[in-house]
């Protein structure tokens, strides 16, 4: 049992911790709750809370996906597929490069580690607008024809800080002795990493994967500069919708996107973590 973090007996400490946690939950979820309620509204322009409920906006969303006409406009289906593809590529690449790096940093010298950590935090620090235009100008001046990688490459840089931090956090819990034990039993150092260290890192890797997936799937600012008429993502599609109107069908679509994200999270959780899940 965890002592001291969340005691079961009543005390001022317990009350305040619970209070702050509940405030945190409300801050995170209130807009989503409101938007979800509004998306079930029966009419198109009443206030909150809605007086009557219906599923009409959801049937519009379904129609959007199924009855997409072949002509004009970026199709929501194509955008969704592109978004998924980008997110999966970004997730795979960023995790594959971050695991060995996290290992090297955790076992390497502290000074190098601090410098490298700072270097790999940089993408988080840069204002995204300026980064977006820089990526665009570079891509155009190099005359790159790289399709979906236009978006994948900047996204990878963007999620690396999150993935790396999670992987490093996971490495910190793994003592050198565990690895040594495997090596003394005859395993090669690489084998020891593969068989012993990586399974122990699993929770951290998984957290990183999920962050990469969510951030890439929902990234807007850099994608806004990098998308082309042929390679566009769901947040871009969503943006053009929300500018013209915030009607309940847009809200229903948002709820749908949240749902898609949650499914993705659960899927990754199940696929990668098996029964020993992270959450």
């Amino acid at each position, binding site marked *: 049992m965890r002592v001291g973090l969340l005691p079961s007996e009543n005390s001022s400490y317990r009350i305040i911790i619970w209070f702050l946690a509940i405030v945190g939950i409300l801050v995170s979820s209130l807009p989503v709750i409101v938007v979800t309620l509004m998306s079930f509204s029966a009419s198109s322009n009443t206030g909150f809370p809605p007086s009557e409920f219906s599923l009409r906006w959801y049937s519009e969303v379904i129609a959007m996906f199924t009855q997409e006409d072949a002509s*004009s406009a970026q199709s929501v289906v194509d955008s969704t597929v592109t978004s998924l593809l980008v997110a999966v590529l970004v997730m795979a690449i960023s995790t594959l490069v971050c695991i060995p790096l996290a290992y090297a940093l955790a076992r390497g010298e502290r000074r190098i580690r601090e410098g490298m950590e700072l270097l790999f935090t940089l993408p988080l620090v840069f204002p995204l607008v300026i980064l977006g235009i820089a990526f*665009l100008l570079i891509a155009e001046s190099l005359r790159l024809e790289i399709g979906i990688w236009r978006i994948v490459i900047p996204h990878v840089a963007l999620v690396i800080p999150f993935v790396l931090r999670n992987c490093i956090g996971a490495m910190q819990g793994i003592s050198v002795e565990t690895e040594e034990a495997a090596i003394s039993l005859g395993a090669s150092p690489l084998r020891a990493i593969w068989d012993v260290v990586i399974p122990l890192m699993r929770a951290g890797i998984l957290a990183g994967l999920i962050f990469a997936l969510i951030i890439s799937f929902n990234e807007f600012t850099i994608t806004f500069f990098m998308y082309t*008429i042929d390679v566009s993502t769901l947040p871009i599609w969503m943006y053009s919708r929300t500018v013209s*109107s915030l009607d*309940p069908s847009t809200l229903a679509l948002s709820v749908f996107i949240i749902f898609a994200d949650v499914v993705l999270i659960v899927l990754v959780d199940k696929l990668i973590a098996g029964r020993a899940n992270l959450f």
Partner: protein
Amino acid sequence: MMAGIMIRPTKEAAANMEKHTMDNTFSRRRLLATGAGMAATLAMPSIVRAQPLAGKEIRLLTWSDNTGLAILDHIAKPFEEKTGARVIADRTGSTSEMVAKLRAAGDRAQYDVITLAGVGAVELAGDGLLAKPDLNMLPNLKDVDPRFRTGADGHGIGYLLWTGGLIYNTKTFKEPPTSYAQMWDEAHKNRLFLPPATWTDALDTIFATGKLIGGDGTNSAEALAKLAELRNSILTFGENPAQLSELFRSDALDIGGVYAPAFYAAELNDPANSNMGATYDVDEGFFADLMYTITPKSKPGDDETVHAFIDYTLDAEVQGIMAEAVLNGPVNQKAVMSEAAKASPFIIKPEQMGEKAIVHDKSFIAEVREDWITQYTQTLS
């Protein structure tokens, strides 16, 4: 009421209308209002004419707001049906974002046709990125009011008038306000909005304030000093039209401008729910900005299709439908409009562009733009 003037559409047109309704919640209302025109344009071409541009493709960049949406519904789709060409549309961004993207792309444009505000056309033309359309390939141009045919040194073809006036709360104002001076009324403190600095409407606001205090509009220093008085009265800048609509609906805003009623075609038809009204009939005048279609030098598509599309934006029926759908002022003098649209106070027709209409000299705006935007930002936030 509308049923009386509605021509019974063909099956295909009916199916199309159904699709429109699915695509956009506001379409239903709009369709009812524009039923006659819609049915006629949608029904006719597929029966009467062959499809001369079958297999061709053009790439269109247009605004993300509801004007952009209307362009897809009322220009791109019927154009496809009429000609057989395919219009791939990108509906993301404001004029300045478009200019940024087009500049960055340089001589590798991914679009064939772009619709944008006059300032943007002038800037891109100045960069040498635009081609001059061949006016002989645009037969509809002869019906366009000569003042609004071309711009940006022949690089832009005018296709609608974007007009800005005052937006007000119909609950607060029984009669439409008649002067921008209303915005300074203490009663509207914290219930006032202004256009964001990054929009041309902000320049118009400075101009209107200049006229309000007795100048000719170019007296920006005094105008900004006057605007500074509003600093603590502003609830928000209208960065997002949909957000403003919600604030009016919930009765949190009284007045604001200079802003385009075009964002609120649906709301203005339903003031009982939206609380929104708009007026151009203001002492200091209203603002009209010619919007252009342009085509980049290095466009990927072919000339014929591009010109056919630009010409189609000027079609008398298309112009009428666009006017009704998003309250844009038509430039085609023969624009086919319903009686309701002809009487609508929100649609400015070319013949109404009299004394009260302020159309900026593009070179003047280009000159003061950067300075005014910066000062407006610094004065008000």
